[in-house]
């Protein structure tokens, strides 16, 4: 069995959307103060959850065809976006460990795609 490229693209797109979900959840967490009314009208959180739901729709469309041994590791590319958004939106600095880890993840994803062709 071969994993179609279109499935890989769907999973990658899903994890890209999911990375924005994380940004909104963190924004939402910063607006929480423990009151239920505040929690229910926290549109940051609601948007974050919605983005996660949307990302899982694309993920599911992706994994419905092809091999999980190829598709699941593609999710790890989401760390790239997470670290990038953390830098842009939350001023979390790039560290040597983050850059080293990202390079390894990108190599890993490339190797898996190589192993799929």
């Amino acid at each position, binding site marked *: 069995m071969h994993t179609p490229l279109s499935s890989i693209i769907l999973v990658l797109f899903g994890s890209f959307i999911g990375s924005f979900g994380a940004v909104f959840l963190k924004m939402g967490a910063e607006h929480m103060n423990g009151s239920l009314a505040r929690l229910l009208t926290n549109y940051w959180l609601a948007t974050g959850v919605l983005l996660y739901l949307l990302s899982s729709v694309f993920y599911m469309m992706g994994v419905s065809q092809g091999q999980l*041994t190829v598709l699941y590791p593609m999710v790890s590319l989401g760390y790239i976006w997470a670290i990038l958004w953390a830098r842009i939106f939350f001023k979390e600095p790039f560290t040597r460990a983050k850059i080293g880890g990202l390079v390894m993840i990108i190599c890993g994803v490339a190797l898996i795609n190589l192993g799929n062709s």
Partner: protein
Amino acid sequence: MFDSPVVDERAEARRSFLLVFSCTVIGALAQILVKQGTSQLGGPHITLSQALGHPNLVARFCLGVITNLKLFIGYGMYGINTFLMALALKGRELSRLYPIIALTYVWVTILSLFVLPGEHLNFFRTAGIAFIVGGVSVLGMKK
């Protein structure tokens, strides 16, 4: 007498380690169920451009999703997992637990080979997973 807070701290660290470790196993099982569930759905193969251009295709897919038992259980486990993870991480630094969280990639691969049809590994795929696990582990290191 002065030792007790240190012991508590260590016991708590072990507790959250075990909790996060269990989460990786539960999370991997959930992934297998999600894969099995989506494979059951059938329907046409949808590409990203089709999905973005034809919302009705996506809607039909979603309708299949919400009536599928395996997906329901899979995502239910995923929800429990998120809750347990939040419990384990309370007052702790997420990044220090990345090496454990990265194990999910190993469990998903092993379970896929045993449970799912048509899965196989080769040198490149194995090396790729090793790189990803290493990379995720490294991300949270200081400096």
